[in-house]
């Protein structure tokens, strides 16, 4: 199998790194034009074509490293990718709120105030927060992994969407917020009267699950379609940029 030319290598690496198609086309075209200029200059200096191409390839630099540099620059140009935790936190907050209000509007959640004796034993509450913490950590790790692998920010935003939605649903299954009056120790204290704001998902059954499933299927479908689109993209040799090389 003949060795791929530097432009093809550049394109392959850009695709592997999940660079958006439009950006791949622009980078490949510009680099191919630059390669052609370098080769032309070398040939004008009297080098035969093969030597001129070798010189142009050497001057252009390692195509894989070049692709990674393009991706690094791309990442640094996006606030979401420069600060993925911040980005994810915002997305999570916005989508969690949207999920919450959607459930309220759809009548799937009721909100009530209650003044009653604290119902949560300290250990019970700690366990609940601990489990939610682990769940949140795993989701964040997953989204950051996606963010690290892909250049295009919307991929991980879309991936975060169903996860945030699901997390919102889980969180709002039955949440009781301490609502102000009384001692703050009332949250943990047994027998202390406190005001509670209770969010209770009514009918936490198929309807909510189906909506969450639609989000997941849509995100997975988009992701698969985008990957296939990238993998089917013709390599530089058969494109206009590739023709510049010949």
């Amino acid at each position: 199998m003949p060795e791929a030319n530097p432009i093809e290598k550049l394109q392959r690496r850009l695709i592997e790194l999940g660079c958006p198609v439009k950006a791949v086309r622009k980078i490949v075209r510009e680099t191919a034009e630059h390669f052609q200029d370098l080769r032309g200059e070398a040939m004008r200096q009297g080098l035969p074509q093969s030597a001129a191409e070798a010189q142009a390839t050497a001057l252009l630099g390692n195509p894989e490293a070049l692709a990674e540099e393009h991706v690094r620059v791309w990442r640094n140009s996006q606030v979401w990718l420069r600060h993925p935790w911040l980005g994810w936190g915002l997305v999570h907050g916005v989508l969690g709120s949207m999920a919450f209000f959607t459930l309220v509007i759809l009548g799937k959640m009721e909100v009530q105030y209650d003044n009653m004796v604290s119902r949560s034993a300290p250990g019970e509450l700690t366990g609940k927060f601990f489990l939610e913490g682990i769940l949140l950590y795993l989701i964040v790790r997953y989204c950051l992994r996606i963010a690290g692998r892909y250049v295009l920010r919307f991929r991980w935003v879309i991936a975060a969407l169903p996860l945030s939605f699901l997390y919102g649903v889980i969180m709002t299954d039955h949440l009781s917020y301490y609502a102000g009056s009384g001692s703050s120790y009332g949250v943990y204290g047994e027998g202390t009267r406190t005001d509670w704001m209770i969010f209770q998902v009514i009918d936490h059954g198929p309807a909510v699950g189906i909506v969450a499933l639609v989000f997941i299927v849509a995100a997975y479908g988009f992701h698969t379609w985008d990957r296939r689109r990238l993998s089917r993209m013709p390599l530089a040799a058969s494109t206009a940029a590739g023709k510049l090389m010949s």
Partner: protein
Amino acid sequence: MTTKTAKTNPNFLNGVPELLVLRLLARRAMYGYEIVKEIQLQTRDALTFGEGCIYPYLHYLEAEKQVRSKRREVEGRSRNYYELTVRGKKRLAALESEWSRVTEAVAAVRGGQHA
């Protein structure tokens, strides 16, 4: 960007590529290859861009809206020409002012050495 003798970027050259590229584009719209050659020519090869490295750099400036690119056909060849934006002009003015301040300060110290 590299110097002819050292293959790694000296720290004090931070910001120089931006200054040079913006300065060249302030004169006229140029494409990547032209920018690299112009820098080599004008600095007499004292400073050179890695040939392929100019594009990530130009794309960064484009993302920062300091330059914009347009496809143009010149002498039968279609190329991506980069030109300065208003934001790029402001950035260039700031960089040039900063550069003057630094070089004057360095010159003062170096002059003091020989005094």
